[in-house]
């Protein structure tokens, strides 16, 4: 069984990393994770975001969960909020779409228009 003593080493490692990295001005990805989101598969979407970001070694993006965004019929929903406050709302997501958002929006800076709420409401 793991023990709390292991945390000492982890603490050192984390402190070392914190000194080189500044966490200001992060882009945030917020995934709706209320009953509606969870039932629609939001957890796989959130995992896909986290895994894809880790795979690409991107540590400048925070992935967080939030409650119901208010348009349950479009779940799973995620919002990409850039440091300048600009927000893109993506709807009806799945793991594959999440990975594309990381590649195209986060890495290349081009929102995936076809997955946005604007495109869905047309």
């Amino acid at each position, binding site marked *: 069984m793991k023990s709390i003593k292991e*945390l000492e080493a982890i603490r050192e490692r984390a402190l070392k990393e914190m000194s080189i990295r500044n966490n200001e001005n992060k882009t945030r990805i917020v995934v709706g994770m209320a009953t509606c989101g969870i039932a629609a598969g939001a957890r796989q979407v959130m995992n896909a975001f986290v895994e894809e970001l880790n795979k690409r070694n991107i540590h400048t993006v925070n992935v967080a*969960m939030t409650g119901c965004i208010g348009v349950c019929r479009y779940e799973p929903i995620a919002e990409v909020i850039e440091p300048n406050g600009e927000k893109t709302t993506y709807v009806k997501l799945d793991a594959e779409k999440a990975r594309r958002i990381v590649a195209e929006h986060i890495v290349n800076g081009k929102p995936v228009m076809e997955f946005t709420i604007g495109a869905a409401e047309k």
Partner: protein
Amino acid sequence: MKDLSLHILDIAQNSVRADADHITVSITVEGRPGILKIVVSDNGKGMEPEFLQKVTDPFTTSRETRHVGLGIPLLKQSAELAGGTFSIRSVVNEGTEVCATFPVDHVDRIPVGNVAETLVMLVESHPEITWEFIFASERDRFEFSLAEVKKALEDVSVTNRYVKEWIQNTLNEGFMSVFGGVLDEVN
């Protein structure tokens, strides 16, 4: 919901919204043939008796963004469809306890799912809350207290990725050692 861990993810957020600062999630298997019991308890603001009475009605919710609240009714349904039970107790200003039981071997019992991952997500989203997780069966007992972890970490956040990884591994090991061989899907 496809598995019990998703229900836990959902129900625990009710506790968060009730302004709890201490939330306990306990998963236990008792007896033979076993009964799987999931309890989420908090020290949040609780509910008035009138609200508590209708809380399993899908058209009851405390939120204002929409008029339906399905978290509790769905858990009740999952439990009852699998021959289990559902109960909820609440005292205003003291807290709420949601309890669902599932006969382990019932053909309609949904699998437990990835519990460690769910719990890490909860910690990550609400690191300010003192989470406590308990797994127990005839085989073993495992307890996890975020307060202890915070104490050991001092100035490092529990949401640091190395810490998260450690928490997830710790919970996974605990879960395996408690439920391996007890629940079919855990091996």
